[in-house]
């Protein structure tokens, strides 16, 4: 086998890995179904399917986030071709994603943010507001 033939064979395998139009439509239908499930969960939480079917808030949050992550990766893998392209691309994208999640997770933790808190309460980081305003008045 010549260098050129070897070159062609390797890259042909790669190009033929892309989904067909029919597969893309199937993937879009799957995404639409997942979105419908998300909305159904939201409606259930509001009592739309009867009081007996109202899920606990924590399970709703976990379920919605799980579906969001699945949709995110389906679009990334198939529509953005990360599943078929060179692995350096998803590593590059994952680096930005992990950096963003890490940095802002630390930031939210620093402000004592809780994903599970109830009701509309003043955020914890304003706890020192009274002392701060007193200090401003004194000065």
């Amino acid at each position, binding site marked *: 086998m*010549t*260098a*050129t033939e070897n*070159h*062609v064979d390797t*890259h*042909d395998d*790669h*190009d033929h890995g*892309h989904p067909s*139009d029919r597969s*893309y*439509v199937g993937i*879009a239908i799957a*995404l*639409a179904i997942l*979105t419908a499930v*998300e*909305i159904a*969960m*939201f409606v259930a*939480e509001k009592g739309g399917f009867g009081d007996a079917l109202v899920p606990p*808030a924590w399970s*709703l*949050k976990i379920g*919605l*986030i799980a579906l*969001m992550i699945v*949709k*995110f990766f389906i*679009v*990334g893998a*198939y*529509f*953005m*071709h990360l599943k078929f392209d*060179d692995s*350096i*691309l998803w590593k*590059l*994208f994952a680096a*930005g*994603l992990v*950096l*963003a*999640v890490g*940095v*802002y997770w630390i*930031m*939210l933790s620093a*402000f004592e*943010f809780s994903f599970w*808190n*109830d*009701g*509309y*309460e*003043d*955020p914890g*980081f304003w706890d020192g507001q009274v002392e701060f305003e007193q200090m401003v008045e004194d000065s």
Partner: protein
Amino acid sequence: MASATAVVDEHVDDHGHDDHGHAETNTGISNNKLAMWLFLSSDCLLFGALISSFLLYRTNISDGTEFEGPGDVFDIPFTSLSSFILLMSSLTMVLSLSAVNRDDQRAGRIWMLCTAGLGMLFIGGQVFEFTEFAGKGLGYTTNTWTSAFYTLTGFHGVHVSVGILLLLGTVFGTRNSGLGKEKSETVELVGLYWHFVDIVWVIIFTVIYLIPIG
């Protein structure tokens, strides 16, 4: 060896790609594509900042108005329809790229125009939503919740608008030169940007609209 190199060189077109879409770079990926992915990777940090700011301020609605929280103003059926429209625009975008790869210029243009049209519908929906909110007395500076909400969704809307301009620019900018297989990388780059805007909305829709605060 020298002849094999010459054959490979002939195999590469003027744009630095061989017939299989691989660039003549150290990584085998074109510089444009690598740059787009680098941009999208960095854009994660921008949207990360906006989403985390919203999460911090999501309970801060003490503004003296009758506004009792997002549940008062969010129209979930309407936003769900907008989300569905944006999701389907990702399908039309990928079908456009598929058509261009087959050298089917007409289908490529039609699918790309469909994508731009769906994007415009989404933006129209966002303008309608903002107008409704403003009608209920929720301005940009009403409270920190509204500031964070308008900033986050507004930035996303700007991204969608830029995507629409890129799509229309690609369709109408190639009227003379054609939108054949040699333009597949251009379409792919616009598509990557468009899909990114879509996945950002997947996060916004769930985190901002669907997840209850309580």
